[in-house]
């Protein structure tokens, strides 16, 4: 045991000193590792930030983590495909869910007309008190007030739509839609609020009114289009999803966000793959230099290795010593790279303005501010790939060194 400890500390000292015998080479290699590790972490944090933003935005716009609706509603969002407001045991379950965040909604296609223009819209009936929990709508209000009750007679429209309709806060608009018997129903609303969406397309499309007012207008008292449930974290909704599915009346369709918007689901699922591919590519580019450095370090020391072998050092210990040297090199490089990444990501945490490509980002479903997001799992992935694969690629040169024939090595020039 004592001998082992001695071996270890001697090997460590040997490796450390060997590393600095050629400080230029070690320095350059450290630079390369640091740049590589920095790029791995920095890029990953930017991509994570972007995808996270897209997912949050996307889920806010669906909205909700889980939607409960008529089986035909997603395909044909008509007033005919409505469901009863939750009642009895099902309502009791919704009241019990951990997040306490759920709301009912009405969603129907409608036509809105100002004095000057007419547009097709998506008319949404909300429960104002619960809305803040399921979508971020109240925070998006840029002028006027939010709806005050389920019977509020006002309407909230997007800034872009107001512009298109040539109307403004306080003015009246007429909203037309159908009741379940295909009769055209219409009603005047006063614009009480204007909102600005992060994705401009939505501003033109979604118009919000109070739920009970719309029930009355559309003649669907006691009925809604959807029930929206929001869990604690969209990444982990399976238990809630199962629970809701079990308790929801059998004739309703229960869908999780990843089933409703497959693009979001794809982004979410592919992200881990993207990160892994990126990390591996950078590692491969680094590995050539790493092996090169070790091969050179060994080549310079052939005589010396022969000598210490002749003096009784076992080949296994030579292997260990070289692997230790490479591990030390990798560890210092990782330290530098991680430090560099933290130092560059920190100042960007308040957001990176990429509004020059805002409309392009909107096409992808992301907003024009990029918030890098450093996750511990990404850090762990980058660091473990570098250290594990790094030591693995060092085995071959180290093994060749350990296999040297002492007599020949001593006589080599």
């Amino acid at each position, binding site marked *: 045991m004592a001998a082992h400890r001695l071996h270890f500390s001697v090997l460590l000292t040997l490796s450390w000193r060997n590393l600095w015998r050629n400080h230029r*080479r070690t320095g350059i290699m450290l630079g390369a590792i640091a740049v590589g590790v920095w790029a791995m972490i920095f890029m990953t944090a930017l991509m994570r930030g972007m995808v996270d933003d897209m997912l949050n935005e996307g889920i806010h716009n669906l909205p909700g983590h889980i939607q409960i609706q008529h089986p035909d509603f997603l395909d044909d969002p008509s007033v005919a495909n409505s469901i009863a407001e939750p009642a009895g045991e099902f309502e009791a379950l919704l009241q019990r869910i951990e997040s306490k965040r759920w709301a009912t909604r009405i969603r129907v*296609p409608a036509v809105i007309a100002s004095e000057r223009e007419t547009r*097709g819209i998506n008319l949404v009936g909300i429960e104002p008190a619960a809305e803040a929990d399921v979508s971020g709508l109240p925070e998006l209000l840029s002028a006027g007030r939010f709806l005050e009750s389920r019977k509020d007679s006002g309407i909230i429209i997007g800034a872009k739509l107001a512009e298109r309709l040539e109307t403004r806060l306080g003015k009246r608009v007429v909203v037309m839609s159908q009741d379940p018997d295909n009769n055209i129903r219409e009603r005047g609303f006063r614009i009480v609020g204007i909102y600005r969406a992060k994705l401009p397309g939505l501003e033109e499309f979604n118009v919000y009114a109070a739920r009970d007012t719309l029930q009355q207008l559309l003649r669907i008292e006691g009925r809604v289009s959807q029930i929206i449930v929001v869990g604690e974290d969209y990444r982990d909704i399976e238990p809630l999803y199962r629970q809701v599915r079990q308790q929801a009346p059998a004739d309703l369709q229960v869908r999780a966000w990843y089933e409703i918007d*497959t693009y979001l689901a794809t982004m979410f699922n592919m992200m881990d793959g993207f990160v892994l591919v990126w990390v591996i*590519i950078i590692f491969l580019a680094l590995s050539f*230099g790493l092996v090169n*450095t070790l091969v050179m370090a060994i080549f310079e020391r052939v005589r010396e290795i022969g000598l210490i072998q002749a003096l009784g050092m076992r080949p296994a210990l030579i292997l260990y010593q070289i692997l230790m040297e490479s591990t030390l090199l990798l560890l210092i490089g990782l330290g530098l790279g991680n430090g560099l990444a933290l130092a560059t990501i920190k100042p960007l945490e308040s957001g990176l303005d990429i509004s*020059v*490509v805002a409309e*392009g980002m909107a096409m992808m479903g992301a907003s024009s501010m990029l918030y890098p997001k450093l996750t511990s799992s990404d850090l762990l992935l980058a660091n473990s790939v570098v250290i594990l694969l790094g030591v693995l690629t060092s085995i071959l040169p180290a093994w060749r060194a350990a296999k040297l024939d002492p007599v020949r090595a001593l006589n080599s020039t």
Partner: protein
Amino acid sequence: MKSVVLRMAWRNLWRHGRRTWLTVGAMIFSNSLLVFSISLQFGSYDMMIDNSLQTFSGHIQLQHPSYLDQPKMRYTLADIVANAQKLRDELALESISARASGFALASSNKRSHGIQLLGVDAKHEPLVSTFPGLVNEGRYLGPGAQEEIVIGSILARNLKVGIGDELSFLGSGLDESFAAGVVTVVGIFESGIPDLDRAMAQINLGYFQDSFAMQRAGHSIVIRAAHIDDVDGLMARISAGIDDPSRIVPRDWNELQPGLRQAIQADMTSAWFMYIVLIVLVAFSVLNTQLMSVLERTREFGTMMALGLKPIHLARLVMLETGMMTALGLLLGITLGALITAYLSVVGFSYPGMEEMAVKFNLPDRMYPAISPLSLTLGPVIVALGSLLAAIYPALRLNRLQPIEAMRAV
């Protein structure tokens, strides 16, 4: 003399064969990766632009100056059919078509939906947009026919109508009068773009003008260029032919779909970040190799200097070695990259989840990288430049060499 230097450089390179191959290996790896991903990028950008523009907006549109920001009924172009014909003659280009557009409430006997109603020139529309070809049930509008309509598949489903069923539409005309009509569904198109399939319908332009009290006016003249590179030339010729810029302006695809170029820019920026990291890593590799090879030859260089060679000659030798190494990496990297890319440009390339991504950007669900001289050489040439740049420091160090000391070095 020259051939001696060349031979010397070449032999020096192989004194440490393994080291040279490892450095060249890093280049080959990076170069083939760059060739593949740049080809893939070029291929998908071209396809993204073509598919997005061909579907509907065309490469250039002539519009009223206010129409782009505020697509309103009243911002019209006068005599649109005659002007479109004039443009066809002037530009000697057939793929030019006139359109008018308005909002209407479409009703079947079961349902009503707000739609974007388009009046199109049925003869020329198929030349500027892929929509007519996307009719997968029934047929496209007949030229000049009245009271026919082609609608999107989701709209048809939501209105619960099929081929031969009647629809009525209701909107407001240019003079604020009621615009109404009853039309028969003759075709249903499926573009795969939900927004269009849900809310778009097309009728004949003449019928649209009658219904919406537009006389001979319309809203846009859509031009599809034979190739995207022709757009600038066409823009210049069209602008020169416009008499009154306060009434009519040409808009190119950048203005019509600003998201497209920006999405490409955003993608390009993040891709180049990755490429530059790869290039820097290769440069580090070269720097390391060349610095080592210079340091270990200190004695040798000392001797050569004592024999009368100047530091500049030695520096040239080192740069020559780097150049040879780089050329090797360049050739092998491009070859390998081209082989991989050529194979994938034939069989196509896809990854799990690509289908969902593809729909969002108007791409097919398999991608085919586009090999071009530029996509083959752009990345590798930058890698080569980076490598040569990295070798400058070791080469310059030779200036500091003192022959006597150098010859004594271990």
